[in-house]
């Protein structure tokens, strides 16, 4: 893969890290509300309680690693790619299943704007960007 131009890669990395830190904060502050947000996706195989307990911390640590811990940056980017890919799949499944639910991405308000295909597309784009940055980061094994 061709390495992105440095300023673009830096901006993308900072944006991804900031998104994860900002997204984690309300979930850590109110895991009960986040458990509801997870449960609304009607994914029977996903234990909403455990996801609500662990996922926000993983988002937070991945975001901090991307932003400020060079030794763990690629690991943070790998998690960002995996998580965003998973969120995109969950969102697409919800929309295809006819659900009209809030995203639960940044706000846990029950009256937040409903999840849409725009969310899914943006999440997928973020996953691709994170994967590209993880491969292009210093220390990455070049294919």
């Amino acid at each position: 893969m061709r390495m992105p131009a440095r300023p673009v890669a830096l901006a993308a990395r900072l944006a991804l890290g900031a998104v994860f830190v900002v997204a984690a904060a309300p979930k850590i502050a109110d895991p009960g509300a986040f458990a509801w947000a997870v449960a609304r996706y009607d994914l029977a195989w996903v234990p909403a309680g455990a996801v609500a307990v662990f996922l926000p911390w993983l988002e937070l640590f991945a975001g901090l690693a991307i932003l400020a811990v060079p030794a763990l940056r690629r690991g943070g980017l790998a998690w960002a790619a995996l998580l965003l890919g998973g969120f995109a799949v969950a969102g697409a499944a919800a929309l295809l299943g006819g659900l009209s639910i809030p995203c639960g991405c940044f706000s846990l308000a029950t009256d937040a704007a409903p999840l849409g295909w725009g969310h899914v597309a943006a999440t997928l784009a973020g996953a691709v960007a994170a994967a590209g940055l993880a491969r292009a980061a210093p220390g990455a094994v070049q294919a």
Partner: protein
Amino acid sequence: MRIALQAGLLLAAALAAGVAANTAGPRRIPWTGGIEARLEAEARASGIAVMSVAEAKAALDAGTHLLLDARAPAEHAARRIPWAMSLPWRTVTSSIEAIAPMLDPARPLLVYCRGAACDEGLLLARHLRARGHGNVSLIGGGMEAWRAAGLPVESDAPAGGPAP
């Protein structure tokens, strides 16, 4: 450091932080399940009764309750409990005006949502109580439990085919 090791360290840190927060933190939640039980407990704590689908069916057959669907309009149109009126929680402040004349404070209300893990029915029921409706009940398990019991549903689909 290899990427897998970095990712593993981050996962271990997240697991440790999650366990610590949910063991010693102020806002602990059940590790697994518990969502449905929590919804029913919160409903009862709010003075909202939770009916089984059999009880709800009997109340609807008797014509004692007005049935309200808290889900989004598209979900209501696709499949609903017969005679339900749409009152989506997320647009309740604007939608409620359309059905306000039918909301007799003396008539019991019965609210349902998507399933046992859907809290929008509870939120709508609380909203209605705050508006002065003293007798508001929830159908436990919502639409999923209704369908699982084999009870009839209706939809806006053209006549000639059953609701999916």
